[in-house]
């Protein structure tokens, strides 16, 4: 039997995977991708709650989240491109000019 709990558990797993991805990726692109995973997991839980509560608001929020995520990814990629041009690398470890 599929309950709300199973959807939430799934969402939790995806979110944790995405979180780990953000923290351990060596590649900045991978970080951005993991960020997308986070958003996807939240979307899933929103829709699940929306179905469970009978309220369309959750789905509308997902709609907006997708839009904003699109914009954010675009800018993030532009920044990565600039970074590549400057440092010739997209290793996260090489971005350490703000060091102590």
């Amino acid at each position, binding site marked *: 039997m599929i309950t709300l709990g199973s959807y939430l558990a799934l969402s939790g797993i995806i979110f944790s995977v995405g*979180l780990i991805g953000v*923290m351990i*990726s060596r590649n900045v692109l991978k970080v951005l991708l993991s960020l997308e995973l986070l958003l996807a997991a939240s979307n899933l839980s929103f829709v699940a709650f929306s179905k469970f509560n009978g309220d369309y608001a959750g789905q509308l929020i997902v709609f907006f989240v997708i839009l904003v995520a699109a914009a954010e990814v675009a800018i993030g990629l532009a920044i990565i491109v600039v970074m590549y041009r400057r440092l010739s690398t997209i290793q996260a470890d090489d971005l350490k000019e703000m060091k102590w």
Partner: protein
Amino acid sequence: MVGIDPLLVWIAFFAPLAACALITLFFLDSKRASSLVAIAGILISFACSCLIFTQIFQNDPPAQLQRSLTWIHLGGLTINFGFLMNPLAIMMLLIVTGVGSAIFIYSRGYMDEDPSSPRFFAYLSLFAFSMIGIVLSNNFIQLFMFWELVGLSSYLLIGFWYAKPSAADAGVKAFMVNRLSDFGFLCGIILLWSLSDTGAGRSFQFTDLMPAIAHIDPHLLTIVGLLLFCGVVGKSAQIPLHVWLIDAMEGPTPVSALIHAATMVAAGIYLLARTYFIFEPSSTALGVIAYTGALTSLMAAILAVAENDIKRILAYSTLSQLGLMVMALGLGGPLQGMYHLTTHAFFKALLFLGAGSVIYALHHEQNIWNMHGLLKKMPVTGITFLIGTLALCGIFPLSGFWSKDGILALAYTHSTPLYLIAATASGFTAFYMGRLFFVAFWGEPAAAHHGHEVHESPAVMTLPLVFLAILSAIGGFMGIPHYLFPQEAPEALNMRVALISSAVAVLGLGLAYKIYGRRASTDPLVSKLGSFYAVLQNKFYFDIVYGWYVDHVQQNIALFLSRFEKEFLLRLCVGGITNLARSGGKTFRYLQNGLVQFYALIFILGAVLLFLILVKTI
């Protein structure tokens, strides 16, 4: 009934301060103008004092006036600034301003050659202001303020020729010793204040404290009395804090005359008389006071015999007479003490000014063995000096006889040991003063002194001498005791004491004539006293003991405290805190490693921990 005009009092109070300010601001380059301003200041005070005197004694009973301005008012603490004018105060004020005026006029002549005399007159005016402040103060804190100010003026004036190392050291010594005594004094003041309960809270005012004394525990009152006496010991140079007065002779002679003979050192006696109600109930305190005075008197008199500097001999004589005054107060006779203070002011100032005249004429020669037969060459100085000497020895009918006799009679009736000590001291006084007079003034004058012709000093210096000589002579007949303490009935003369003391004085003078009348070239006493003479020369080793203490004990304590401060307080405490901050910073900066993912990690870690805390798992 004519009351006292308060405006006169304020003018008398602040005229010398105005003079000092004017000199400092405008007249520091002009010798003539600065001396005139200073003399004007003190004369104004003197004139006002005379007017106030007449106003007081036109009334019967004599008038009294107190005015106060509230200066500090903080909860239970009230400090006023004002004056208390009563017969005792006006008499003291007359002495300060009268003798002061004479000395100011004299200084004009004496300091004529000195290039920095404007500074001298500024300091002198400052001193006059401070002394008048002590005389007029109506509460302990104001008194203490002016007490310290007088100490400062004394320091400035003793070390006036600051380029001379001995003078600068003497100034510092005086100030240090006074500071020591003032500490005890301040403790006494605060203790008294905390014990006082006037019904309207605690007070520093004399008039408020008078009725409050009755409620204070006698043992505590004794302690208060002894602590206040500490201040007197320092300021009036009693044993063991007498050491500064001798070295204070490094200052110019008018300074010695004014400060260290007539007025400042008398401030302690004045304090005792003014606040006598505090000491009266406590016989222990009075006993300590009396014996301190007596011992000082005797010791100083003995030491004077071995001195060869004219000013130092006079300084010891001052010490001795101060001791007598203190003893009188300890025996319950504020009247006798103040009477002697008044006459002493006259003849001691006279003696010092005379010595100054001699020093001036001989171009700063101070050793009496280099002075020959000055009576013939400097008649006015010589005769006035003689009058002063005789007054000091207590010869009838000069003023000193009456006042000293009062004290000796008091001692005779109250305590035999004290009387014997006092009488012995008087005998010694006659002896060394005779010695001084016979060596310096008697006999044949030398042809010339160091190639210069010796002649009488100018009139500006001799006129004050004459004025003071007249006062010394007739002072006994001016009815001073009545003016000092109008409530007390005049005392009859104790014939027995008078005869004994006169005999002792004549004996002393006679002995001095026998030894020194035929002028020898060196002091015959040196050989006669042998090794004891060395003890006298070292002033009973007080200075050496104090010096040893300062060098070995005081310095080590100071060094220890300095090291404690540097190592513990600065390095461990303050330095420890800074090191803690620095090392904390050094450790925590590794958090800023510039790696974004690390920051994200910390961020998420924080969020998780916060969540767990909120859910109360941790």
